[in-house]
């Protein structure tokens, strides 16, 4: 049996395989490099980077929920300069693609990050207009059609690298948002960011998160993610990176059948530090078992 071809192409960037890390769940790879060989990953998406350092929200920031978790990290990060100095130089030692998730409170802030990254060696920018954990900017760009298109346009003009836009699932009509960002120039779409949720400790009678609400991720949300990938894949022509509760290769294949080209592993990293590699192997096993030669074949093989 020949090894299946795992390569994918997103907006002209060749990834050796479709397994990507979900932003915010893999740091900048350093910690997981002690558990897995980063060279094996299709791409690493680093945590959200802003123009200047962000402190993030107060603790507690984590709550466990049934089959998932809430987080309200609030995009704590040391800013784009520190990212370039420390994390990027570390990541460049590996043979994998680098996707930088960028965040901001205003269009200008987003553009400054994209600008600063434009003469660096990163491979793609992922525009995060969907973080539910920051008051201004963040999610509001992702829930309003006009704002979504405008910010995509602005960042696209500034960025030198292909632009992925990461959408919020907390909307009535994901398809129209997807169309808006494609109209704004998005080269690819990431789906989904976290669902807005909340948990209360019934003994202390307080919300568990200091921020009260947070973003829900994990296998609990997978059916919502699959539905959104399916709907958006039918409606737009750009490649989709699917995520939301991928724990195994089989989960990843489900996203591909729904229409995703790439797949990102998020919360699963916390349950299993080798989750990305396990997912990769699982996809390959599936392809061998079902006689798929490449990822594109899976993506086109849903039977309705």
């Amino acid at each position, binding site marked *: 049996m020949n090894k299946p071809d795992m390569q994918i192409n997103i907006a002209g960037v060749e990834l050796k395989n479709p397994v990507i890390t979900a932003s915010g769940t893999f740091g900048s790879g350093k910690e997981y490099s002690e558990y897995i060989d980063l060279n094996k990953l299709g791409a690493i998406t680093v945590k959200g980077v802003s123009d200047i350092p962000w402190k993030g929200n107060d603790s507690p920031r984590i709550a466990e929920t049934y089959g998932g978790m809430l*987080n309200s*990290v609030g995009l704590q990060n040391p800013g784009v300069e520190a990212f370039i100095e420390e994390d990027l130089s570390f990541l460049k030692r590996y043979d994998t693609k680098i996707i930088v998730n960028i965040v901001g409170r205003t269009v200008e802030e987003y553009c400054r990050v994209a600008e600063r990254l434009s003469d660096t060696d990163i491979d793609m920018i992922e525009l995060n207009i969907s973080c539910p954990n920051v008051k201004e900017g963040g999610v509001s760009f992702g829930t309003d059609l006009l704002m979504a298109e405008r910010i995509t346009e602005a960042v696209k003009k500034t960025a030198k690298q292909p632009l992925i836009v990461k959408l919020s699932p907390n909307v009535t009509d994901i398809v129209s948002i997807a169309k808006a960002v494609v109209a704004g120039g998005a080269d690819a779409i990431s789906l989904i960011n976290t669902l807005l949720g909340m948990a209360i400790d019934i003994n202390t009678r307080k919300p*568990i998160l200091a921020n009260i609400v947070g973003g829900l991720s994990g296998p609990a949300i997978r059916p919502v993610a699959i539905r959104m990938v399916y709907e958006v894949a039918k409606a737009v022509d750009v490649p989709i990176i699917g995520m939301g509760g991928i724990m195994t290769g089989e989960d990843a294949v489900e996203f591909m059948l729904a229409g995703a080209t790439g797949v990102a592993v998020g919360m699963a990293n916390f349950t299993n530090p080798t989750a990305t590699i396990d997912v990769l192997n699982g996809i390959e096993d599936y392809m061998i078992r079902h006689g798929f030669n490449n990822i594109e074949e899976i993506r086109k093989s849903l039977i309705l």
Partner: protein
Amino acid sequence: MKKLYYPIIIEQNQIARGTFSMKLQCNEIAETALPGQFVNLYCREGEMLLPRPISICETDREKGILTLVYAVVGKGTESFSRLKKGDTIKVLGPLGDGFKIDESIKTHILIGGGIGVPPLVELAKHLKGEIYAFLGFAESPILVEELESYGAKVFVATDDGSAGFKGNVIELFKNKNITGGMIYGCGPKPMLKAVGKWAEDMGIKAQISMEERMACGIGVCVGCVCKIKKKEEEDWQNRKVCTDGPVFWSEEVIWDE
């Protein structure tokens, strides 16, 4: 490469109401663990996906045995308590940055509250010189003999006075009028805050072990932060309990409210 382990449980005993001691046959962790470090324990039930951080209470390097002592406070720890000798459990570790040991110090003061006592046992084992351990509990004391076996002079306080001093451990400690070269604290936040205050007043350095809700336990999710003063600055930053801690210098910790 680091990895997950699936050690066998070789002993599991209830040592006080709702408090269990679990021994794992896990050579890799037992051989490298340092005092104040912790492990991630994972539940079997598919609805609970996040690890439970549990301090390393004691290690037996020769036999490769790891002792964990935990209180049943929720579904996860309840599920651990149902495991039996011979069962396996999923573990990641050792994790975190533990207590700093300064060999030049002659007298050590350990202050533990409730389920914060376990890491003091492995610590006592590593300390040279005089060790005084002040332990506070709601009711039944735990791990007193273990601490004594490593040479600690142990003083106990209980809220109900059922054992030792009636009252809280800080009062007991102040009453005893003992001082030393370093304080090590582990327990509930109000206790740690009081320890820090006292240490500051007395001009003694104190290391305290912080607790926060965690997702990864290895420093990637930035979920477990506490506020730590920047050196020589008014400003503070959110630092990770799992990798920058769990042990911090008490003088650097900023307490909310």
